């Protein structure tokens, strides 16, 4: 009786990430710039190849854990559980995609074009090696009745300078959404608005912070995911439909949320990108003094 010895070589799935993650963005054409956010349709050249590649990567076990702990205790005691299954994908695999996002940030003037030095020749070669280190790429699948921490669906900032969401399937009634935080009749579109208020009315900002700490931060209790709706303190200002191969770009300091319909599945790639430090030779604006403002 013989044993069948499986070779590692036969079990490792090799993926042509270079091809599957190649973007379409050769020119500024196709970029719809709405100021606070940007929509780019047909972002990837081979979206189906990318989906196959992403699906070949594993996810962690947290969604299974959350399903059990919610059923048994109504809680998820291990930190913030975002809705759905998350795959931590390796940014280095999808450098072409990240480069496309970076170039789009320049084209739509989120980043100055000085970084054009990173878009060509030897400068680009060096830059491509560094770029993934400043990025996060997470595949996220939301499905009906998925479990999340209470308040995890509340619009919030991110920890990244820039964010991008690439929708990987059509999901009618699912949207990327942008919100204003409303406090005492006044709207705040982003973190800077709030910081600015803090210069004039620190007490007011303290009150806002207290409210957000209690109502805008994920709790230990869990729930079946629900779409976030307008409240007294959050007013939806913009939305973008979830359409396959559509990229939505925005700065991380805005109040944004994915509003999933709850029907069928919504599969997307969430990208976070921090500003890539410039060469030292370009430094020189260290001095700041608000007194000199007009």
């Amino acid at each position, binding site marked *: 009786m013989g044993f069948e010895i499986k070779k590692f070589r036969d079990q490792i799935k090799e993926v042509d990430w270079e091809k599957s993650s190649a973007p379409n963005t*050769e*020119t*500024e*054409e196709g970029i719809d710039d709405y*100021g606070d956010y940007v929509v780019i349709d047909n972002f990837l050249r081979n979206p189906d190849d990318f989906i196959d590649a992403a699906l070949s990567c594993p996810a962690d076990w947290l969604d299974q854990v959350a399903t059990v702990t919610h059923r048994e205790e109504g809680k998820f005691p291990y930190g913030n559980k975002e809705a759905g299954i998350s795959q931590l994908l390796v940014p280095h695999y999808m450098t072409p995609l990240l480069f496309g996002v970076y170039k789009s940030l320049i084209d739509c*003037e*989120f*980043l*100055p*074009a*000085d970084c*054009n030095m990173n878009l060509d020749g030897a400068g680009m070669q060096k830059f491509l090696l560094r770029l993934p280190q400043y990025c996060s790429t997470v595949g996220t699948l939301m499905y009906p009745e998925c479990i999340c921490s209470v308040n995890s669906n509340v619009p919030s900032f991110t920890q990244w*300078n820039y964010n991008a969401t690439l929708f990987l399937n059509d999901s009618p009634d699912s949207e990327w959404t942008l919100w204003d935080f409303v406090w005492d009749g006044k709207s705040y579109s982003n973190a800077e608005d709030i910081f600015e208020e803090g210069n004039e009315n620190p007490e007011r900002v303290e009150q806002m912070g207290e409210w957000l700490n209690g109502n805008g931060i994920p709790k230990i209790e869990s729930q079946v995911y629900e779409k976030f709706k307008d409240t007294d303190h959050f007013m939806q200002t913009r939305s973008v439909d979830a359409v396959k191969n559509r990229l939505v770009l925005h*700065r991380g300091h805005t109040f944004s949320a994915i509003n999933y319909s709850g029907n069928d599945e919504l599969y997307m790639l969430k990208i976070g990108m921090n*500003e890539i430090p*410039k060469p030292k030779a*370009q*430094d*020189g*604006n*260290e*001095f*700041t*003094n608000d007194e*000199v*403002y*007009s």
Partner: protein
Amino acid sequence: MTKFIPDISFPPPKFKIPPVHQDDIPQFTFAELLEISRFNDIDKMDIQVGDKGGTRFLYVHNILENPLDMRKMLMQFPAENRAKSAKEALKLNKGTSFSTSKAPGLQQPIERQLMPAFGNELFFLIGHRLNFIKYRRESINWKYFSNCFYPGMTAWNRNYLPHMDPFSYAANIFLTDHPKACTTFFKYTDPVTGIESFNLYDICSQKSVENGTKERYIKQITDRYGYLPAPEIPNGFKSPNVQAEPWEFWKGDDFYEDYLELPSCFNTMSFYAGKRWHSACYDAQNEESARYSLVAVIE
């Protein structure tokens, strides 16, 4: 450890070494630099925000509170005389002088260590008050230089023709009054497709390559202006190699159509994206004085 002092028993100097006096060095205090850099209150400015053919621009009059003080300070920086340098460099260094800019006239590099207050004022106006740019403050590095166009200056390789800047946005603050001079923006309309192009990105787009616009554009600029075909590089052409010529007061023709002019009026700032074709229009044959401006660019 034994103390070491190099042997300085050199022969005495043949000539008296002239002393340096600290007052010979131009000096400015912190408060003086703040005053020099101060912008007028926004209520005192005349601000025009526009968009012509997708070229967004700001045109702000009465921007500096002390424009002549700014001018006086800037004029103490040196500049390389590029008209002479360019000719010398042809013999000495294959045509490359120290200043690599293709800008006409004289250009003084301005040390940014002296300009942060000005940079703050500028960002506060265009980014914060006017919300004209959406870059994060931390993303911006200002680089400063001056432009001085003067009577009788020469052109080098036809640098009066439209160009694109290697940086994203430029602020040009005019410190002399030359309302006939201007920064002019151009577009090219393809005669076959009727499609308008505003820069080389448009010309090199996949669509322009496929519909023949790029090929027609390159043929025209080589025939008309002496650009050199260069299929080996992505643009497909190189700058004319005619070296020094009299500067032309060039404001477009039936190929490059002028659609936006921002005049060079005293204490006025034009602010625009450098990636659109534009050029400096200055009548070097007839103007009686130099046009002088401070340029701040976002790198």
